[in-house]
């Protein structure tokens, strides 16, 4: 019978300033990005950057909770594969991400609405 590898997911809360060093650390430890996403909950952004190890199937999520106005550095310089995730967060949520490698400048999806998943303006 084949072995099952099913480690428990890990969630680490970090501060936005720790983001880049932490990501760098993951990268050097051989993790790669599995997903990155944002959520707008309680007037704050929750950014999740999930990393995974392909051999152990570990799944570690970095959670950054920030205010709407906080600027976030792009991790695409360290992890090029994050480009599309970051463009998406920027366009759909309005997260202020700086210096994305290939910045579509809110035209990845070219939607009419502005940051539809982010804070509702005017309400």
């Amino acid at each position: 019978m084949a072995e099952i590898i099913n480690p428990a997911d890990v969630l680490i809360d970090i501060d936005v300033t720790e983001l880049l060093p932490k990501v760098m650390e993951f990268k050097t430890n051989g993790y790669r990005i599995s997903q990155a996403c944002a959520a707008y909950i309680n007037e704050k952004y929750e950014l999740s950057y999930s990393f995974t190890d392909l051999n152990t199937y570990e799944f570690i999520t970095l959670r950054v909770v920030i205010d709407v106005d906080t600027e976030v550095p792009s991790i695409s310089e360290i992890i090029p594969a994050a480009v599309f995730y970051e463009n998406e967060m920027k366009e759909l949520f309005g997260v202020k991400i700086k210096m994305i490698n290939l910045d579509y400048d809110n035209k990845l999806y070219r939607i009419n609405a502005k940051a539809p998943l982010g804070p509702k303006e005017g309400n």
Partner: protein
Amino acid sequence: MGKRSVIPYGPQHPVLPEPVHLDLVIEDEKVVEAIPNIGFVHRGLESLTEKKDWETMQYVIERTCGICSFMHGMGYITTLEKIFDCEVPDRAKYLRTVWCEFSRIHSHLLWLGLLADAFGFESLFYQCWQIREKILDMVEMTTGGRLISSVNKVGGVLKDITPEMEKVILSTIDTMEKQLLEIKDTFFEDYSVQARTKGVGVLSKEDAYELGCCGPFMRASGIATDMRKMGYCAYGDIDFEPIVSNDGDHFARCYVRMMEVFQSFDIIRQAFSKMPGGEIVLPVKGNPNGEAFVRLEQPRGEAVYYIKTSGKKNLDRFRLRTPTFANLPGLAHILKGCELSDVGLAILTIDPCISCTER
């Protein structure tokens, strides 16, 4: 301007399965630069959590994509089950496994056909799709829908596979396997096919890792990772090994997917031989509260589901990271330096599903 041409590729293009667009700069026909553009299918379905309750959302999420519709429904339900922390009856787990593999077979056959079409082998395309129809018939027989099955429910599944159905399925699988063996040779040995696939669009193991690729796309570059190894559904009880190839070219990706179809036949047989009886659904009460990530191996690779909710009818956040989304950087990588004739082929070899990518 010199010797370069600047042309659009997509969104409407017969080789493209779905609308994507590339700005292509080509020299003769060699691609010098390719900038992808998505968004022609973007609907924004993640935002529907604001408007629809978590039960109704299942039917929306199944329609993220018509190909692995079952998987999406199941992924969503599994995430909720993780939040509810509820136990699913064993029979339901096995049934889900069978349907998962149905999805895989139909998706891969569809892909093999489209690949054949992309390299201009129309008869082969027809042959693949002709075989594929049988899977759809079986899906309809068991779930009631050809593509969109709608059989999941938190706590189990809604429909059972009867012994008669089981018989039909097992015998159909046998005929399919025979038919597929025939075309396998064409895919693997035919000169013209090899001329189009061997050594083309190479993605090295390092690049595959670096660029965050997943699924058969990644396994064809020599990385043996398959989320099914995490043992969700009944995969923990089933004997299989991820299929890998080391060349990282179109041929390798074709090889991996073809072999996965055969593997799926095997998994279905195993599942039926081990399937326990009993309940297929256990009821749950109340609304979910909490957050969870779930990873599944879809035909195209690892999909990540994330739900965050706070005990209300509506979820706070639903997030779906689909395999194609993760494979986009890899695609951009293999596009550079390939030929114009290979562009369609390259796009196909990652087996893109733009609809789930853009949601």
